[in-house]
């Protein structure tokens, strides 16, 4: 059976694959070891609906309308009037020469001509790469694409591709503040992961047009509000690490056959919806199908994956040490279950050779705990 047919079977009959966007692609890199997520994303399963059908609905990626409005307002301000604010920042911070003030809006209002818009973006950026720096400076809303599990996914990023000398940079405009040169590390990481998706896609575009993909810098320019004002400020962010993770995860999804081979025969996440789109499949049956694919729950999943609550429930039921966080999981390498950890710590279980180190840590922790509780008592 071909890969596509196997993925279609996983998704269920007549269900259209859920399209990816930069946010969902970025989320793929958050937990690269999770087979459940890799398989479901490759098949384009609607994880939101699946999670709801198992009785563990989550609200991931649903932004508050206020946050969205603030983000859009800031971006519109930075980009307005041919990117006047942006040009000022680039001139002041990066020494962009005055003659380079080209601004080309590659966006469109219409989704029905996505392929055509991709070609337009490609020819505009390729023309710029072909000629000198005078052939374009800012390219707003370029249409990009990436191959995810064998399917081309079009991305319409709210970003600007920027050319300085012979390098292209991604400019990502975000509405979280940079106060005294420091921003929230979580926000920066999320922005970096998302930008790395664009860097990779822009590299693909240039390669597609017969150019050296390394024309795209592995640093991105992050534009954020400065301090407590609405004035923009620009900083470089290195995304090499994120690019490596992203490439690895995409390669893993491209190699989805191997993961599919490990699944039991006949497993499907089909919700069998009725005429009103309501799932008719029982929650227990669906949960059984989900459990047949190995998951790797970590508390970080809660902010990145729609299925996180389902996986957390399972991890708690199984007394999994991974549910306590990545640090704990790494410290207790090889100890999968909390009851084993307690037994090792209290000395009721003799560790095998590979668990000696973990057992020592646990015994030390247990001794400390007893000592402290003894003092308190």
């Amino acid at each position, binding site marked *: 059976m071909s890969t596509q047919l196997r993925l279609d079977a996983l998704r269920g009959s007549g269900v259209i694959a859920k399209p990816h966007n930069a946010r969902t692609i970025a989320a793929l890199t958050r937990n690269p070891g999770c087979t459940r997520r890799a398989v479901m994303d490759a098949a384009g399963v609607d994880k939101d609906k699946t999670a709801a059908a198992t009785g563990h609905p989550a609200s991931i990626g649903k932004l508050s309308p206020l946050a969205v409005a603030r983000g859009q307002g800031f971006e519109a301000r930075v980009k307005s009037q041919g990117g006047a604010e942006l040009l000022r920042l680039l001139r002041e911070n990066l020494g962009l020469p005055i003659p380079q003030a080209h601004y080309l809006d590659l966006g469109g209002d*219409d989704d029905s001509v996505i392929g055509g818009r991709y070609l337009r973006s490609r020819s505009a950026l390729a023309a710029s790469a072909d000629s000198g720096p005078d052939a374009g400076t800012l390219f707003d809303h370029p249409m990009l694409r990436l191959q995810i599990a064998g399917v081309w996914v079009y991305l319409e990023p709210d970003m600007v591709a920027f050319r300085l000398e012979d390098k292209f940079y991604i400019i990502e405009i975000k509405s979280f503040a940079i106060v005294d040169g420091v921003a929230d590390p979580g926000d920066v990481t999320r922005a970096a992961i998302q930008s790395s998706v664009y860097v990779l896609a822009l590299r693909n575009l240039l390669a597609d047009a017969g150019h050296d993909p390394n024309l795209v810098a592995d640093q991105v320019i992050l534009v954020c509000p400065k301090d407590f004002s609405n004035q923009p400020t620009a900083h470089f962010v290195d995304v090499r690490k994120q690019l490596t993770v992203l490439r690895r995860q995409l390669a893993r999804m491209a190699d989805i056959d191997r993961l599919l081979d490990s699944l039991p025969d006949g497993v499907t996440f089909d919700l069998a919806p009725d005429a009103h789109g309501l799932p008719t499949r029982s929650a227990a049956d669906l949960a059984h199908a989900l459990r047949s694919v190995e998951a790797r729950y970590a508390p970080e999943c809660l902010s990145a994956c729609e299925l996180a609550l389902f996986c957390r429930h399972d991890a708690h039921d199984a007394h999994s040490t991974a549910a306590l966080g990545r640090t704990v999981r790494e410290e207790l390498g090889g100890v999968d279950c909390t009851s084993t950890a307690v037994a090792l710590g209290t000395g009721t279980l003799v560790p095998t050779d590979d668990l000696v180190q973990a057992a020592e840590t646990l015994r030390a922790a247990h001794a400390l705990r007893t000592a402290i509780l003894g003092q308190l008592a």
Partner: protein
Amino acid sequence: MADPLGIEELDQRISEVKTEIRKAVSAQDFAQASRLRTQLRALEAQWHGALELAESSVSGKPGNMQLPVRETVHQILTLLAVPAAPRTIVAVHAAFFAGELAGSQLTYLRRDEERSFRTAPHGRPYYLCSALTYDRLTAARGLIAVSSWPLHRRIVGTLSARVDYLRSAIKLAEHIDRTDRPSPAAQRLLWQVAAGIPNASASFGDARPASVIEAATAELSVHDDDDRVQREQAARRARKQLGDAEQLFGAPTLSAVRKAG
């Protein structure tokens, strides 16, 4: 009591209800279609009411001789002398004009102008129309222009956004220079514009019209020639390829062509 719907919302609701009626008719659900028709009539009555209200609020306020939105926008565009986005128009209005102008009032302006032009071409002395992209000659997103300008001024090439920014900065500075006592809002606008031009303002929050004009003219001289070549070429092409209405409101996009076909 809930606020009555605004005229734009009514527009949208009316077109939604019309779609529903069409669906009901094609599904042969005539009872539903008749219910929807009653609803449509009520909405249309509300629409006329809202329109009258809007008219009276523009012209009827005592001591406030405000122009209709169309005239106001025309005046602002004439002042700036370049195609401008609703955001810019609203900012200029706040700096120089009395009364209120909201961005939402400009939403349907260009569409209404196009409709008027297509029903009775050249019936008005001027139309608020589109700027055209230099490569595809389609309407440039979010820009409003005036039909009486030479066509090349309504073309948006790769440098035009910058050139137009500098041109409008010069125009604004000249206008403020002519004003006896410019309002704080006008001075703030001038400074905001000057902040985007190298060497235009001496210090934070302060910009003199003369230095803005000088700095903008200096940068303009760098871009102007390249920009003009691109614009004039495109304008020649537009005159050759497009009909009157398309020259004003843009060549049809690919999807519009598909729909028509």
